[in-house]
């Protein structure tokens, strides 16, 4: 990176050469902003307006309907469980992938991104074929007395699968960058192996872990395609908020659908803005140092 890119004073995006061509500049800016206004601002306004069209009391009334309330609670519960498991397993997976050599490491590393590419509906089907009532592992699971599909564990499993890459992919670069120097220094100075991991490795990775888990939470809250397949969608028991929204659209209750949607969107969007803010701060710290 040149000094120019780092120095904010030098990085004046509009070059003097561009100024004599205001039509092109204004044209492209107009196109860009109109596209975002049409595709994002307008639909967003429509949903917020519909949610509040009968006033805040009606909005709260929609949220307080027993099925909507249970659906929101369930979504929060399964997203939180997913997040916790992801934090532990994602960090561990990233650590193992970066630090250890073992047969199949490259394959596993390539497979991590698969849930980003595979349609979530297909994800749901994969889980039903293996863990479902007529599934391959059903006899074994029944013997253990566990119902996975059409029950809460199935929802968590689906969410774990679709959010599998988030924590791993945000922790990995930091782990590679940190290299083993610090770990080895601590180790040489007499810290125990796991003491080193706990005291040196984990604290430096914390921001990345937090980023990964916020992103996976935001993703889990809105997940639909895989959940509608595995959940069974029993109101009050396995009906998540996005599936509830779908049901309300189908039964023409646009206001109820919009009210729950506003809550879900606010939650995810706040989390994503937090992530953006954290990353910006990290960049600033890096540039200052």
């Amino acid at each position, binding site marked *: *990176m040149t000094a120019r*890119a780092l120095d904010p004073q030098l990085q004046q*995006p*509009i*070059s003097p050469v*561009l100024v004599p*061509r205001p039509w092109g*500049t204004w044209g*492209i*800016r107009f*196109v*860009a902003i109109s*596209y*975002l206004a049409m*595709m*994002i*601002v307008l*639909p967003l306004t*429509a*949903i917020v307006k519909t949610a509040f069209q009968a006033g805040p009391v009606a909005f709260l009334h929609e949220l307080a309907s027993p099925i909507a309330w249970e659906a929101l609670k369930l979504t929060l519960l399964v997203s939180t469980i997913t997040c916790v498991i992801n934090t532990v397993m994602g960090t*561990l997976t990233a650590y193992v992938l970066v630090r*250890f050599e073992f047969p199949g490491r490259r394959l596993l590393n*390539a*497979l991590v*991104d*698969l*849930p*980003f*590419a*595979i*349609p*979530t*509906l*297909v*994800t749901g*089907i*994969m889980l039903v*074929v*293996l*863990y479902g009532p007529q599934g391959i*592992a059903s006899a074994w699971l029944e013997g253990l007395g566990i119902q996975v599909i059409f029950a809460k564990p199935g929802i968590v499993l689906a969410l*774990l*699968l679709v959010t599998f890459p988030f924590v791993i992919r945000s922790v990995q670069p930091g782990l590679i960058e940190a290299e083993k120097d610090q770990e*080895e220094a601590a180790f040489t100075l007499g810290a125990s192996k796991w003491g080193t991991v706990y005291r040196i490795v984990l604290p430096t990775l914390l921001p990345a872990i937090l980023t990964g888990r916020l992103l996976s939470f*935001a993703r889990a809250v*809105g997940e*639909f*395609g895989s959940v509608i*397949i595995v959940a069974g969608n029993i109101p009050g028991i396995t009906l998540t908020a*996005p*599936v509830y*929204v*779908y049901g309300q*659209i189908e039964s023409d209750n*646009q206001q109820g659908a919009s009210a729950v*949607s506003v809550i*879900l*969107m606010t939650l995810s969007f706040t989390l*994503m*803005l937090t992530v953006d803010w954290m990353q910006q701060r990290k960049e600033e710290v890096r540039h200052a140092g």
Partner: protein
Amino acid sequence: MPVSAASQSQAQRKHSFVEWGLIAVVIAYASLLLLGPLAAMVWGAFSEGFARFWSEITSPDVLHALKLTVLLGGGATALNTAFGLAIAWVLVRHQFKGKRFINGLVDLPFAVSPVIAGLMLILLFGRDGWLTPLADAIGLKLVFSVPGMLLATTFVSLPFVIREVMPILSQVGTQQEEAAYTLGASPWQTFLRVTLPTIRWGLLYGISLTLARALGEFGAVLVVSGGVSGLTETATLFIFRSLDDRNYVGAYSVALLLALISFVLLILIELFKARRVES
């Protein structure tokens, strides 16, 4: 540093008992979550033989659904590539009030459940929708029709190109572009000859992510399509309907086909990502 080198090679040569334990846990987790279900679906698709699989994925309904999926995926990708480039350019190269706000808005489709994306379009273009009179006036039917599904698919895959191109644009700076201007190139020439080659791998990475997302879109399209089977049925919608009709082999077969397409796209994605990091 002999100590570090020695310990490093030692760490690579043999793992302690605990380390093998950790590796085993990670592999077991990935198998339960990813490999096992993937293998099960392959088995499910071929459970009644290859001939059955083949007849399922070549049935007229499926072929029609695949055509529509490719059409929507291609259309959404084209729109988001063209407009995404413009938006990335404006957000990096221009300074104006409200830029940060607009930058934040770009991520919204990632934060919105696909069902909610579908709901937004119903609110705008459905019965009593805000823009329905306008759409009627120009004779465009957007709900329960292919144009509406295209709009839904475009919405959910909107941020990828923008988010992949922006960091590269801001990293390369304007020096080379200014040099080209000064030497008399038109803005369009500068873009084609200077900017585009610099950002191409990042752009291709963004395009392949967009395409993967668009081909697999389900929730938004389900809401907007209205389930007019045959006419507005994409591959994912076909799978959903087949499950309802208890045509399990059909559902698994098309699901496997979509998974295979994702595999190919994933390989492309990894390739472009590696090239982007190199350059």
